[in-house]
C-alpha cells in the first residue's frame, strides 16, 4: 500500500533545520510532500557524500526506487550503522519525492519490521537531539 500525503503537522513539528544537506541544495526534492512506501530493501550503500538505498515497491506505484540519505558521518552519530538496512528487509520508508517524477527521492525515515523507527533527516527524536534535550540544551 502506498500512501501519499501533504507534509503533516507531526512531521513539520519534528523536522529540524537542514544544515546537514550543505553538500547540495534540496532543489531536486519536493520537501513539501512526504510519500510513504511499504518496500523491500534491495541494496543499502553506506557511502559518502550520501547513503543510498534501493528499494522495491509492489502494488500501485510498483518499481525500484533510489533513495538518497544522510551521510554515514551524520548517521553513525545518530544511531545508524552500515548494517541497519539489509537486502530483503521489509521497511516502511517516508520519502520526499523527486520533483521530476522519476522513482526516487530523499529518505526521511525508515520503519523496520520490528517496529523500530529510524530517522534519516535531523529530527527531535534522534539520539543526538534526545541527548541534547536530556541535558536541557
Amino acid at each position, binding site marked *: 500500500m502506498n500512501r501519499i500525503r501533504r507534509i503533516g503537522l507531526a512531521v513539520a513539528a519534528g523536522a*529540524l*533545520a537542514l*544544515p*546537514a*544537506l*550543505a*553538500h*547540495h*541544495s534540496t*532543489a*531536486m526534492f519536493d520537501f513539501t510532500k512526504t510519500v510513504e512506501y511499504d518496500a523491500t530493501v534491495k541494496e543499502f*550503500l553506506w*557511502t*559518502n*557524500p*550520501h547513503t*543510498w538505498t534501493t528499494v522495491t515497491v509492489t502494488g500501485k506505484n510498483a518499481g525500484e526506487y*533510489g533513495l*538518497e540519505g544522510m*551521510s*554515514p*558521518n*551524520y548517521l*553513525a*552519530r545518530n544511531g545508524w550503522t552500515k548494517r541497519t538496512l539489509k537486502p530483503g528487509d521489509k521497511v516502511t520508508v517516508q520519502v520526499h519525492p*523527486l520533483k521530476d517524477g*522519476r*522513482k*526516487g527521492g530523499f529518505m526521511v525515515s525508515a520503519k523496520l519490521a520490528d517496529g523500530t523507527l529510524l530517522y534519516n533527516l*535531523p529530527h527531535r527524536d534522534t539520539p543526538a*537531539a534526545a541527548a*541534547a534535550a536530556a541535558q536541557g*540544551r
Partner: protein
Amino acid sequence: MMKRMTVAVALLASLTACQKSAPPAAAVDPAVEARTTAWAALAKLPDWGGVWEIDWRNSRGSPPRPQMKLTPEAQARLDAFRAAQKKGENLQGDVANCVPPGMPGIMSQPYPIQFLYQPDRIVILTEAYMMYRVVFMDGRPHPEDPDLTFHGHSTGKWEGDTLVIESVGFAAQNRLAPGIGHSDKLKITERIRRVAPEWLEIQTTLDDPEIFTEPYTSTTSYRHLDDELREYVCLENNRDGADSNGRPSMRLE
C-alpha cells in the same frame, strides 16, 4: 699515599659512572634541545582537544547573524542571482559536484573540525571534504602576491586564550554567501576562544570593500564532541550535480 689512592679510586668510579650514564653534555644537539622546548611550550596553550561540531540548534544562543551591508555593485549581482533562481538556475552550486566550498564556507559544514598544534603552525582539519587549513604561528607575513587558493594564506597569533587568524588570497570561485562573491581584497579575521568547557566560539569578520560597505562579523558556537573525525570522500558515491548555470540533477542508476 692513602689519600692519593682514594682520589684515584674516586676518579675511576666517576669515569665508570660517566660511561654507564648519558653521553657527556657536549654531545647534546642544540637543535633537539630547541625542538624539545618548542613542543613543550604547546602544553601551555589552551586545550582544544577532541572535535568540535557547529551548534546547529543554536542551543547556546549565539546572536543572530546580522544583515550583510552590500555595495550597490554587489547588491546588483545578488539581485541578478536571485532573479535567475526563479528560472531554475543557481539552485545548486559546484559543491554538489564535490568541489569543496573553500573559505569561509568550509568552517560552517555539518561535520566536525579538529585542531592540531605544532610549534610553528596550527592545522585545522575539517571532516567535510577531508580538507585542512594551515595557520602559520611563526610570525611570518603573508606573501606579497599569494597564489589564490580555496583556504587562502593564514597567519595567527595568540591574544591571551584567543587565537586570532588572518587569512588572505582566496580563489575566485569562493562564495561568502549564495550569490555573494568576493574581490582580491577579501581579508578574513577569525577570533577563536574556548568560552566554556563545552563551547568553542568563532567570531568571523569578512572585510572586502568591493562587497561590503562595512566589515561583516558573525559569531558561531561549536560544541565539544567526544568523537573522532570520520573519513569523507565526496566522490565515493556522488549522485548529485549542478550544471554551469546551477541547475540541479540527480543520478538514479
